[in-house]
């Protein structure tokens, strides 16, 4: 399958990586004790690992090449992926959704409170992912400061609760609105920038918000954060911790269902189509009579709204927040969820969030390598499967032979 030539190339790659990682992976110095530790085993690992990866990539490329050739001669017909079939056939889709919903409803009774708690976190990321998906996946605006809106939501509730004893249900719409307002305030000046500038400005904005929260002690209590935030109220009844978690879990399920409903409706609407068109070609979009700024701003503000909602829920769940929860890495994780799952695909984002949040939780041994893996996932997905695990499919319409259209 692979020629000697290619083996040689892989060998060279492995030598190169051994060289590359030498100073940082092999040598470890202790500048205080003044000792040097030589970790040669790391070099062997890197060499072997990069050799294997390089071989795998080569095998993959050869296969792709063959498939392309056979496709050209008509010998090979692409199989429609099973996910694609399920998603495009309403019957299957409803059955699947129903089954998933049923499983998630009985989940807390089958697993421990600890598991339920982890699941709540995962569901929060599902919502964040779906929110960012509107901005990045549909409208194609790379927002690297998404976490700022999440922070706005969380701090709105925390501060309102701390100063004015405002309850969760009151704070939820307020947090969402404030986040949307921030989205508009930031979006208004920066949305006319080109894509890569937008990425950097949003990144900077996210950092500014965090730095302000960290340094403005009178306002946000600085790095020590705000504690004793009230949990969501349940008709004025004081819940035990266990019940509070259960309550929060069902609340999250309801919120996720609501989010999916909204995003799904938006996706196939006039505004949703405009977002996708904007992502595809801005100039053509304008020439078709779409107001670029208004459309972008809507996407930006809607995405921010969702981050704000989840922020409020986050503050209520942990009952304690500080600026450390709102670093750039948080934005990166959410972006990674969207990219891995499939930009623009609701189902994909859900799958992405569950994989990326649950996997490190259950593979504790690997959790140190979490961020490393996230970085690698972003690069690998872009190179080998930019459409994500579950690709987005466009809605199709059926027509009778007459000019009559039906949805």
């Amino acid at each position, binding site marked *: 399958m692979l020629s000697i030539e290619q083996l040689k190339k892989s060998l060279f790659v492995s030598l190169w990586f051994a060289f590359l990682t030498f100073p940082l992976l092999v040598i470890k110095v202790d500048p205080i004790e003044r000792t040097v530790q030589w970790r040669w085993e790391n070099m062997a690992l890197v060499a072997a690992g990069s050799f294997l990866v390089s071989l795998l990539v080569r095998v993959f490329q050869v296969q792709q090449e063959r498939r392309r050739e056979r496709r050209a001669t008509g010998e090979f017909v692409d199989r429609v992926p099973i996910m694609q079939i399920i998603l495009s056939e309403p019957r299957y889709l409803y059955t699947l959704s129903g089954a998933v919903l049923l499983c998630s409803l009985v989940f807390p009774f089958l697993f421990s409170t600890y598991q339920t708690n982890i699941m709540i976190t995962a569901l929060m990321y599902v919502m964040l992912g779906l929110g960012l998906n509107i901005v990045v996946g549909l409208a194609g605006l790379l927002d690297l400061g998404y976490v700022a809106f999440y922070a706005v939501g969380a701090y709105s509730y925390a501060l309102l609760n701390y100063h004015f004893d405002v309850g969760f249900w009151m704070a939820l719409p307020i947090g969402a609105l404030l986040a949307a307002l921030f989205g508009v305030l930031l979006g208004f000046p920066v949305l006319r920038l080109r894509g890569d500038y937008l990425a950097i400005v949003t990144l900077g904005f996210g950092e500014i918000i965090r730095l302000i929260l960290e340094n403005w002690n009178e306002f946000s209590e600085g790095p020590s954060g705000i504690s004793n935030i009230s949990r969501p109220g349940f008709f004025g009844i004081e819940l035990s911790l266990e019940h509070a978690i259960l309550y929060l879990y069902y609340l999250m399920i309801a919120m996720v269902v609501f989010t999916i409903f909204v995003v799904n*409706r*938006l996706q196939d609407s006039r505004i949703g189509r405009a977002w*996708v068109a904007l992502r595809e070609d801005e100039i*053509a979009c304008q020439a*078709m009579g779409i107001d670029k700024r208004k459309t972008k701003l809507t996407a930006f503000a809607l995405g921010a709204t969702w981050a704000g909602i989840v922020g409020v829920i986050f503050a209520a769940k942990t009952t304690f927040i500080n600026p450390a929860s709102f670093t750039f890495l948080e934005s990166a994780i959410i972006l990674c969820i969207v990219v891995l799952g499939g930009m623009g695909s609701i189902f994909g984002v859900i799958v992405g969030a569950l994989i990326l949040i649950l996997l490190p939780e259950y593979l504790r041994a690997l959790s140190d390598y979490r961020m490393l893996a996230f970085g690698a996932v972003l690069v690998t997905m872009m190179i080998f499967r930019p459409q994500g695990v579950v690709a987005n499919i466009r809605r199709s*319409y059926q027509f009778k032979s007459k000019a009559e259209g039906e949805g």
Partner: protein
Amino acid sequence: MQKPVLQVEGLSMDFGGIRAMCELDLDVHQGQIVALIGPNGAGKTTFFNCVTGIYNPTEGNVFLNPPDGSRPIRLNGLKPNQVTKKGMARTFQNIRLFQKMTVLENVMIGRHCRTSSYIFGAVFKTRATRREERETVEKSYRILQQVGLADTVNELAENLPYGAQRRLEIARALATEPFLLLLDEPAAGMNPQETHELDELIKQIRDDGHSILLIEHDMKLVMSLSDKIYVVDYGKKIAEGSPREVSSDPAVIKAYLGEDIDA
């Protein structure tokens, strides 16, 4: 006599001190097909970009006089989307379709500026939104039938053959309900059969009551379609008139065949 639907007066465009277009005048009358021709780099696409608001012209005026007799509209300083909404739509020389969207969706995007439902309507599927969506789909489908793409509604735009993509661009522009259509080299890259069909299509669009301004290199097509031809070279108008007048104009022959025709 009725005012021309498109009235361009003394349009000039500078790029960093270089004059790409110099005091161009041009009229398109209702129901006419007008062609803008000239060698490569003569400033034809620049003219389209200035008229449609993508560039902001350095000097000159662009007016639209809607055929329904409503007040003239000055286009200078309007954004491309506003221009489109006023009733002038265009296609692009290098095809700019929404590649990852279906053929039907591409045309539905054209309906955007004639519809109004927004977030609230989309989420709650109000009666007005549902009616609007139904209309959008029907109208888009009808336009696709008109340009002969009704069989490919659910294909992705990127999967269409070249000629079909050009026709889809026209369909998309028609969906914005323009009274004036600007076509930028619609026949580029088409084979003779496709060009012939395009010829029919453009005439049919004209007969439906649209006025058309087109940039084209295919002289056979230009001569067959046009009521009037403008010839530009180096950003200046060098001739205007009926196809017959223009094709015998010495300045035009010189521009196309070079200075040293006698040598």
